[in-house]
């Protein structure tokens, strides 16, 4: 079993829907068919009135003294988005449980839905206890005034996008002998455990969370959702195992999508291509309810709005606003692609205005020495990296085609650090990481680190699924953090194990594998400029079938620090690039005038199929090691940061029309 995915080919994966117990109840959710309405009555199923008060879904993160509205588990007086859970039904038979959904009667008094950032700012508050629809306001950087020769402004917009992992969300909850056991498809058993413990008022020792094999996530599987709380509550009440598996249409209406961001930006510069300042407003549509992540999103985008450039003056006002749409969550990149699209589209506009080559303009604005932006972002000088990359991708030839290029940075979400545990058992080594992999190939760096430090052959090392009974504390996998944070924790856990072995006079791997040694390590970490990757992306666009713009080829020259596994890094890059390209061409979650999501199937959400894949030219680069023992940087979100601005520019060149919205507006094709 040298290759972990072999079990998937044998049909022996254990995804959450593969887990069954005798007498299991299938839970189904009855959802609002209105985006904004007063609920007059609910007849049938388990309703908000049946639940203990204060059962809320607190989202991915939770802050005491929060000043935003969190999602209730079931809507009570008002439904605030299409697809919001209103009632719950269950049966031992899966088909019958689905039939029961049809028996629940909900009557509504329809209200006008608030469906855009503009409407949100100009409408009565959807939460009646609030004075307006603004969730939070931020000021980032410092006010400035400049008399620059060149002053350019534009409005940029990125539509909402669904994570759409191939496996939807799902949970099995089983309250048994005073303990709540949860099997779940997730990016973090810790985020789930902490959330459920708090919401259900349990003692942390009375809840165990086990990660099932997880069929992709892209940000959607870290939050504690209403359905999880209901499944646990129902199991605690009935003492029976309860399973809830999301259908694809529920994913489309009710899983937290990402993006939904707008910028009104103004840049200042001189005629020679030296950018002097950037100012403007950034808005994020957080949907009907908020959490820490969504409410602070404008500030996180504003923090990195300068990209890799040394821009001396920055002032951004950020607003997150409520709308009658599903609550916003993270989608691969979570703020990073927004910032990159905004600044890079302005850089191209500037280059065009003064008639300078966009690459020359970009190179001119890179910092010569270590730079701290007015928002507090600290960057290392990167000119050598980008100059090198420009040569390596053959920019002089690309220039003659309908090409676009982007310079980017990837800020890994290292804060909080990570944990790791190593256990020798029956001649093999088992590893648990606080960030729970869904086979983004974490096992490859795990094997590499243990080989390097302990000399253990790769086929003796197994990365286990997340399990709160084995490793008590952890954070999660997201934000391009795992190689850096989990890699660091594992590296140090391996050194600890080595030390223990040496004390017992175990000096070779054969005897180590016969032992029953184990070690565990947790370390908090802070973002350090050495951990930030630089990204150079290029794309070439063409017209297909005489009408449709497509991206034919993509180049990526990405700094990954010390590459722990080129294979793992390669797949992460190409996967991210395709998602990034598709976000430009077609992938989006749009809503109709009543607030109902327009796509009804996975295909209609505009995801990429094999025929949409461009030709990839990926070069993995090392521009210095990160300040960690193993030297890795992040990579998971690189493609979704780099590809959209490059692809947008390529299409702009192809069509001869400005691209300032994602996905492409059909009007551009007219």
């Amino acid at each position, binding site marked *: 079993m040298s290759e972990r*995915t*072999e079990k*998937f*080919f044998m049909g022996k994966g254990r995804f959450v829907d593969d887990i069954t117990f005798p007498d299991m109840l299938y839970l189904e959710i009855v959802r609002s068919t209105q985006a904004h309405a007063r609920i007059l009555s609910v007849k049938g199923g388990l309703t908000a009135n049946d639940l203990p008060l204060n059962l809320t879904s607190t989202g991915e993160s939770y802050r005491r003294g929060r000043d935003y509205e969190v999602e209730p588990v079931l809507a009570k007086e008002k439904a605030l988005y299409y697809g919001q859970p209103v009632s719950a039904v269950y049966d031992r038979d*899966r088909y019958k449980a689905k039939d029961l959904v049809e028996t629940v009667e909900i009557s509504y008094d329809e209200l006008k839905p608030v469906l855009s950032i503009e409407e949100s700012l100009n409408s009565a508050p959807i939460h009646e206890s609030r004075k307006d629809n603004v969730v939070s306001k931020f000021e980032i950087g410092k006010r400035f005034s400049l008399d620059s020769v060149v002053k350019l402004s534009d409005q940029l917009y990125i539509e909402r996008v669904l994570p759409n*992992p191939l*496996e939807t969300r799902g949970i099995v909850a089983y309250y048994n002998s005073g303990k709540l056991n949860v099997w779940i498809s997730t990016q973090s058993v810790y985020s789930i455990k902490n959330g459920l413990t708090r919401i259900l008022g349990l003692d942390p020792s009375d809840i165990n969370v086990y990660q099932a094999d997880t069929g992709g996530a892209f940000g959607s599987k870290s939050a504690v959702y209403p359905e999880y709380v209901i499944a646990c509550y129902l199991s605690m009440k009935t003492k029976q195992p309860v399973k809830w598996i999301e259908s694809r249409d529920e994913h489309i209406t009710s899983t937290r999508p990402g993006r939904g961001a707008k910028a009104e930006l103004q840049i200042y510069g001189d005629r020679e291509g030296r950018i002097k300042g950037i100012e403007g407003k950034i808005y994020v549509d957080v949907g009907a309810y908020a959490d820490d992540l969504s409410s602070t999103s404008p500030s996180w985008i504003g923090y990195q709005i300068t990209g890799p450039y040394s821009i001396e003056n920055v002032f951004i006002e950020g607003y997150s606003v409520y709308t009658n749409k599903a609550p916003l969550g993270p989608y691969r990149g979570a703020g990073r692609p927004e910032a990159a699209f905004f600044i890079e589209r302005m850089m191209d506009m500037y280059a065009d205005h003064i008639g300078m080559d966009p690459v020359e303009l970009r190179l001119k604005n890179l910092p010569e020495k270590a730079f701290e932006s007015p928002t507090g972002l600290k960057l290392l000088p990167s000119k050598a990296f980008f100059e090198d990359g420009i040569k390596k991708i053959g920019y002089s030839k690309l220039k003659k085609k309908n090409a676009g290029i982007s310079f980017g940075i990837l800020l890994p979400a290292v804060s909080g650090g990570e944990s790791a545990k190593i256990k020798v058992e029956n001649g093999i080594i088992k590893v648990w990481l606080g960030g729970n992999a869904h086979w983004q190939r974490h096992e490859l760096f795990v094997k590499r680190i243990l080989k390097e430090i302990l000399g253990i052959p790769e086929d003796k090392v197994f990365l286990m699924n997340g399990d709160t009974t084995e490793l008590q504390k952890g954070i999660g996998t997201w934000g391009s953090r795992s190689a850096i944070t989990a890699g660091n924790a594992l590296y140090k856990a391996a050194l600890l194990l080595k030390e223990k072995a040496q004390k017992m006079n175990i000096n070779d791997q054969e005897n180590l594998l016969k032992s029953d040694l184990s070690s565990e390590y947790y370390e908090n970490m802070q973002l350090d400029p050495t951990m930030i990757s630089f990204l150079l992306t290029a794309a070439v666009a063409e017209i297909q079938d005489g009408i449709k713009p497509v991206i034919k080829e993509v180049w990526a020259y990405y700094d990954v620090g010390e590459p722990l596994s080129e294979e793992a890094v390669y797949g992460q890059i*190409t996967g991210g690039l395709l998602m990034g390209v598709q976000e430009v061409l077609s992938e989006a979650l749009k809503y109709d005038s009543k607030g109902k999501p327009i796509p009804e199937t*996975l295909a209609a959400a505009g995801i990429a199929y*094999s025929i949409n894949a461009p030709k990839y030219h990926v070069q993995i680069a090392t521009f210095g090691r990160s300040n960690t023992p193993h030297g890795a940087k992040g990579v998971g979100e690189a493609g979704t940061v780099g590809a959209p601005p490059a692809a947008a520019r390529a299409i702009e060149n192809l069509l001869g029309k400005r691209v300032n919205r994602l996905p492409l507006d059909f009007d551009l094709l007219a």
Partner: protein
Amino acid sequence: MKVKLNINGKDYESEIEPRMLLVDFIRDVAGLKGTHVGCETGSCGACMVLLDGMPAKSCLMLAAQAQGKKIVTIEGLSAGGKLNSVQRSLSERKALQCGFCAAGFSIMGTWILENEREIDYEKVKTDLAGVVCRCSGYERVIDSIVEAAKNERKN
């Protein structure tokens, strides 16, 4: 109603509701969990099986419709615990990430090897157009199937 389905050479007889989908029969009656439900609308291919040798999406048909046909699921491709050549190639090239799509690409790849003549990158790319991989960007998946075809021709 009573149906008898032949899956991977074995008969499974059961009393079912007429509306039961083939994918639910495979997973819940036969207990073969390698066939997955990804989208319920034929958009993703995670539920693919071979039906009398032809690729079919088992979420789009009733179990009863498959009576009398030979059904092969992903479990049926690795007879005797050995991966078939397409699966081995996908596995060795580490083409998949999350693994939820394994049935789709294994079944479709196997069909391509058995039925297509000139197997090259573009051919495979087109043939795979009904199977979704959300993780990899497809390149390594396509390469793996092309390589498996090359190796087959050599042998």
